[in-house]
């Protein structure tokens, strides 16, 4: 970070004529720099998540001998894969929040020290959790595996974070974006608590598991996403704030209206009352509407008169987020959300396909949008190699699309052979083998794309040539 600061100083000296009217100062508030370490660690954890994912892909595509399976069970690595996902995305959101809040509230973060303490708390929890899994220290609930003592560290870390952000907002300017962001973060933290207790009844256990997982990704995280996207939209396009805020309210209203009752689509087959089939089906069928609104809104912004896109790279990722959200969460979610279809596809590779496309399209790309907006500024890089950055976008996005579609094909085979014909699980899996190999190939491509992006974002030097204000 010190290096970045030095670099920025040199740049400012080298091009003093650019520092006019305060507009060209890359990072207006010193405390925004906290975000740097959040982003770098998040990116590194994403790399780790994909490497673990590679092993999972191999385990699907090939036979792993019994002695290796005994020493390194699939379940252990799968726990790492999903926990790394949650950890890097939460760190990304938090870093994004720390970067965004000072500019919105127009003041420094309440306490930079607390921001670092909180980062250490989360990263330490993550490391202990991952090592702990290897020694069987687990709660055994998918995604929420980390044992109760670590849950408390997470809660304390989250409280520090919320306190720090809230104090900054209270003492500073209050905007709609900040309100939405803070609301989403409080909601996110509150929901986590429902996943902590031991429930005797399995049905109740899963009922509240979805309070965390569904209401995170289709509730709290949507609020955080909408706020971050609105911030980037204002910065990159220069569109009038009032217009962006209006759409922020309408879109999040639709997200929550459909998403809250839409939780019911997870309660079809768990031993809950049949009313959920109706409510879950109807509301979750509407869940695609706010995403369509988001895509239309993004393109409408771009076509507005007088709008000049100031950063092609960030804009590519922002549009990618909207479109990826629509494909992964909207279309692939809608495809199997109705009870009549879900009866056959529930808990198959169709779900895995939807999970990968939705998490990448909606949340990985959102994080990358923010990373690409902030990282060059934090490193004092005035001009990034846009061609390389945008190639990174396409390699990653197409790889995930290929991987997701291959999983979907495998899922359709599974649905037909296992669920419709009633053949054994392994008979179905044998017929899906080819597609698991396809998934593996796309997984390798994804890793290449991510490593390229990682390099561009964290290490690459400034691109030669004049800084282009417009593209």
């Amino acid at each position, binding site marked *: 970070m010190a290096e970045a600061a030095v670099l920025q100083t040199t740049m400012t000296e080298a091009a003093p004529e650019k520092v006019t009217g305060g507009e060209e100062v890359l990072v207006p508030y010193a405390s925004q720099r906290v975000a740097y370490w959040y982003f770098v660690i998040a990116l590194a954890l994403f790399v780790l998540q994909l490497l673990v994912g590679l092993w999972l892909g191999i385990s699907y595509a090939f*036979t*792993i001998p*019994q002695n290796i*399976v*005994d020493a390194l069970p*699939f*379940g252990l690595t*799968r726990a790492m894969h999903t926990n790394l996902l949650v950890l890097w995305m939460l760190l990304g959101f938090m870093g994004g929040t720390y970067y965004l809040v000072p500019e919105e509230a127009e003041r420094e973060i309440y306490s930079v020290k607390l921001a670092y303490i909180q980062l250490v708390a989360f990263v330490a929890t993550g490391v202990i959790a991952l090592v702990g899994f290897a020694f069987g220290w*687990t*709660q*055994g609930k*998918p995604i929420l*595996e980390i044992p109760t003592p670590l849950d408390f560290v997470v809660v304390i870390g989250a409280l520090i974070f919320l306190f720090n952000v809230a104090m900054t907002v209270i003492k500073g300017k209050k905007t*709609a974006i900040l309100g939405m962001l803070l609301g989403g973060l409080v909601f996110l933290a509150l929901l986590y608590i429902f996943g902590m207790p031991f429930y*005797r*009844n*399995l049905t*109740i256990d*899963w009922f509240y*598991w979805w309070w965390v997982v569904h209401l995170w990704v289709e509730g709290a995280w949507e609020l955080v996403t909408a706020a971050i996207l609105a911030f980037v939209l204002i910065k990159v396009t220069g569109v009038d704030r*009032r217009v962006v*805020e*209006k759409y922020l*309210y*309408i879109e*999040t*209203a639709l997200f*929550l*209206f459909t*998403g*809250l*009752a839409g939780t*019911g689509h997870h*309660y*079809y*087959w*768990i*031993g*809950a*009352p049949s009313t*959920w*089939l109706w*409510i879950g089906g109807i*509301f979750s069928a509407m869940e695609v509407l706010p995403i369509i609104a988001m895509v239309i809104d993004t393109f409408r912004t771009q076509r507005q008169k007088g709008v000049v896109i100031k950063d092609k790279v960030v804009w590519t990722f922002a549009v990618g987020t909207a479109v990826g959200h629509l494909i992964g969460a909207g279309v692939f979610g809608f495809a199997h959300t109705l009870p009549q279809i879900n*009866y*056959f596809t*529930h*808990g198959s*590779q169709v779900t*895995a396909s939807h999970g990968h496309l939705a998490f990448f399209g909606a949340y990985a790309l959102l994080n990358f949008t923010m990373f690409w907006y902030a990282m060059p500024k934090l490193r004092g890089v005035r001009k990034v190699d846009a061609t390389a950055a945008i190639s990174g976008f396409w390699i990653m996005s197409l790889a995930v699309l290929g991987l997701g579609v291959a999983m979907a094909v495998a899922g359709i085979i599974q649905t037909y052979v*296992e*669920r*419709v*014909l*009633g*053949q*054994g*699980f*392994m008979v179905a*899996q044998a017929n899906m083998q080819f597609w698991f190999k396809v998934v593996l190939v796309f997984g390798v491509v994804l890793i290449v794309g991510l490593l390229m992006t990682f390099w561009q974002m964290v290490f690459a030097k400034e691109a030669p040539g004049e800084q282009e204000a417009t593209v």
Partner: protein
Amino acid sequence: MVNKKAFYIFLAGTLTSLAIFLGLTWDTHRQVDALTNADKLSEQVVAGKRVWEKKNCNLCHTILGFGVYYAPDVTKVHKRIGTEGIKQVVLQPEVVFKDSFRKMPNLGVTEQEATDLAAFLEWVSKIDNHDWPPQDSEERMSAAERRATGGAGLSRGAAAFQQNCIGCHSIGGAGGSIGPALDTIGATYDAATVAAYIAEPTSVDPQSTMPPQTTVSDDDRSAIGEFLAKQQ
């Protein structure tokens, strides 16, 4: 101001959906005991649930369709392979899946843990969950299995086979793959030997890893023996 209106729309939409959601949550708590046979939720079942979590079972298997898709769903596994079958699989996966292209790790489960786990899975299999999953739905699958077993409506042996054996064994490609396919078993054993095998597998084949089927009646064993002896 326009944005004030937008904010009220936001509030109204969110609160409506939240009210529906919380109302149904209350209703779920009201009905869940009846739907899940909570009166049968014994300490042993809870102990089994703890084994399920301790051994990370849910990180390969799905239950109620949730979890990971690497291994079969276990919601109705107790109906498929019963207590003895479950114990056999978790205690000796390296034997059961010797020829499978996907393996299950030996997680060092004790005899007691296996028994508790089976009790938990038996309780789970009786949750009233709208007859999911389809592959274990008796209503949906009986037609396909009847075809596979050559008309269970006509032969008692085929019906008993469908009821007791098809969780692990298959005929004509339909059925489980934990035990060998029995399409040509009649060429190896006669009816009486099959019946004896079911009661005490090692009495016929000392190498056998199949658990003794203590819950199958003597009449059913003879009927299955006659049915399987014809498969050659």
